[in-house]
């Protein structure tokens, strides 16, 4: 019983983290029609920025470090879109490949700067406690992740559904050429969304660092998770990303515990099923 309870709570915590990772990925995918293969790199690089800022030599506050790292990644993401991806406007395959090439570069640069050692910042002092209910131990910190994810989800939702910018993004996701015709500066929108996605991933990287730690290869571990979440949830849909994240959180936790023999395919099998049976994802609209 305690096992199931622990797994259930942990599923939600992991789901929260996955949402931070995949919300931006989903928006980029929906708007620009490309899977951003450097999204895992944004997550990892952001986490490395975070551990550096948290290190004793700088000793920044945890949340401040997460914000600074997110801002830095926003700038990097914006520059990548503006000066590299935009040159290839409309050529999806080269764009995808470009993000893949950049992910190689980022991985090697990180190895050069932060060496191969794993880095794991301590859990922030004020969040270090453990929630103890009915014999189940659960660290506060992971619950805080859920809280943060929910706050960000609401903020994003408000932005997309209630602001002018959000309306433009929705228009772009629905039909970029038409949006362009009606006077929306779609290319600026691309830059903005790409920067936003990078920032969210970096923020998630810092928030996740105390329990995932940061090491070479983290990028390649996170990217498939973002892909799966977005495939399940549907591209360009924040609700889809949210539901997909929690779905994967549960699937991962219960799947690993209940079917250890399927551990390697536990996430890819459902992804495959959805792709084959409902290619637009659970919440996505049909894309041509």
């Amino acid at each position, binding site marked *: 019983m305690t096992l199931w309870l622990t797994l259930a709570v942990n599923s939600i915590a992991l789901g929260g983290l996955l949402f931070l990772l995949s919300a931006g990925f989903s928006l980029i995918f929906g708007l620009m*029609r*490309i*899977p951003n293969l450097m999204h895992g790199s944004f997550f990892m690089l952001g986490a490395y920025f975070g551990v550096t800022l948290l290190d004793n030599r700088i000793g920044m506050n945890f949340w401040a470090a997460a914000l600074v790292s997110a801002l830095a990644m926003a700038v990097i993401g914006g520059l990548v879109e503006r000066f*590299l991806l935009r*040159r*290839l406007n409309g*050529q*999806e*395959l*080269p764009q*995808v*490949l*470009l993000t*893949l*090439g*950049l*992910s*190689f*570069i980022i*991985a*090697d*640069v990180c190895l*050069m700067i932060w060496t191969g050692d794993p880095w794991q910042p301590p859990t922030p002092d004020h969040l270090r406690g453990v929630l103890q209910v009915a014999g189940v131990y659960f660290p506060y910190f992971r619950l805080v992740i859920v809280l943060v994810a929910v706050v960000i989800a609401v903020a994003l939702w408000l932005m997309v559904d209630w602001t002018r910018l959000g309306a433009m993004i929705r228009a772009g996701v629905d039909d970029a050429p038409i949006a362009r015709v009606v006077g929306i500066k779609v290319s600026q929108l691309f830059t903005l969304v790409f920067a936003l996605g990078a920032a969210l991933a970096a923020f998630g990287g810092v928030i996740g660092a105390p329990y995932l730690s940061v090491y070479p290869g983290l990028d*390649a571990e996170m990217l*498939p998770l973002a*892909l799966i979440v977005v*495939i399940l949830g549907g591209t360009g849909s924040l609700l889809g990303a949210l539901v997909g994240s929690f779905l994967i959180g549960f699937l991962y936790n219960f799947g690993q515990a209940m079917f250890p*023999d399927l*551990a*390697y*395919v536990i996430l*890819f*099998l459902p*992804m*495959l099923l959805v*792709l*084959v049976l409902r*290619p637009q994802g659970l919440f996505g609209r049909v894309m041509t």
Partner: protein
Amino acid sequence: MSWMNAPRWATGVAIALLITLPFWVGNPYYINVASQILLFAVFALALNVLVGYGGLVSLGHAGLFAMAGYAGALMLDAGHGHLAADLTAIAVTVLASAVFGVLALRSTGIGFLMITLALGQIVWGIAYRWQSLTNGDNGVNVTTRPAPFGISLASADNFYFATLLVFLVALITMALFVRSPFGASLRGTRDQARRMNALGYNVWLIRLVAFLFSGFWTGVAGLLFIYYNQFISPQVAALQTSAEALLMVISGGTATLLGPIAGAAIVVIMKNVVSAYVERWNLVLGVIFVAIITFMPEGLVPGSVRLWKLAWRAMRGRPAKAAEPSA
């Protein structure tokens, strides 16, 4: 096709250079590097059938590549002869390609890419986890290379010649394929799927046959790979392998015959030769890819041809025209 426009003598010289390579290279290490380039070129050419001519981007071909390798290695390990092992491996791979194709062709574009990616990951997971069959990450050793017609391929030279032969057959097959009516209809499904459908072509079937053709040559490349390395382990099926093959095709130039070969050469030389001199070779590889994609989005081979033509015209004082679409 750029290579067909090239004068016949250039093709002849290239083939002559390849055939005589062991005699002027000398050191077996470099001959081995050449063998690796050729075997990965076969892999890249196979992938190019789908990516270039079919417009179907697969990120799961490492799964097929590894499946051929595993089937061959396991047959040999079980004591079967080379011929039986090779035929089984090819049969298994073509069969697996059919399964991949039927599933993946429910979609096109990014959906196709994602399904193939998932399938590749599942093959990787099985290779890792199905211990009793695959020996897990400890991998399977291939103790001997074959000796067709009594000629042992154990030496670097002989293996190179065998690989070159397979490579040339693959290249010729591809050239014929591209020029055949079937190749034309495959390109038709890439450019005008609806119109092809309206004209009465079975678009789905054309794509599936292309997938099988691609799978066949991927299997051949997978066999060459295990005979070359004499070892296979789950890393071969990893996403990294699929991504590298795709980078070979796209950086060299999709829907060309020379492109995938050039791409294979870049990747193999960077990984094996340049890495001995440049510690951050991964970084350099990434920069090269980004540079190629940024400045020659059509790929290295067509891109160079375009730049060459531009330069040529500029030299002769004529106004440069817009680049012609390649292939």
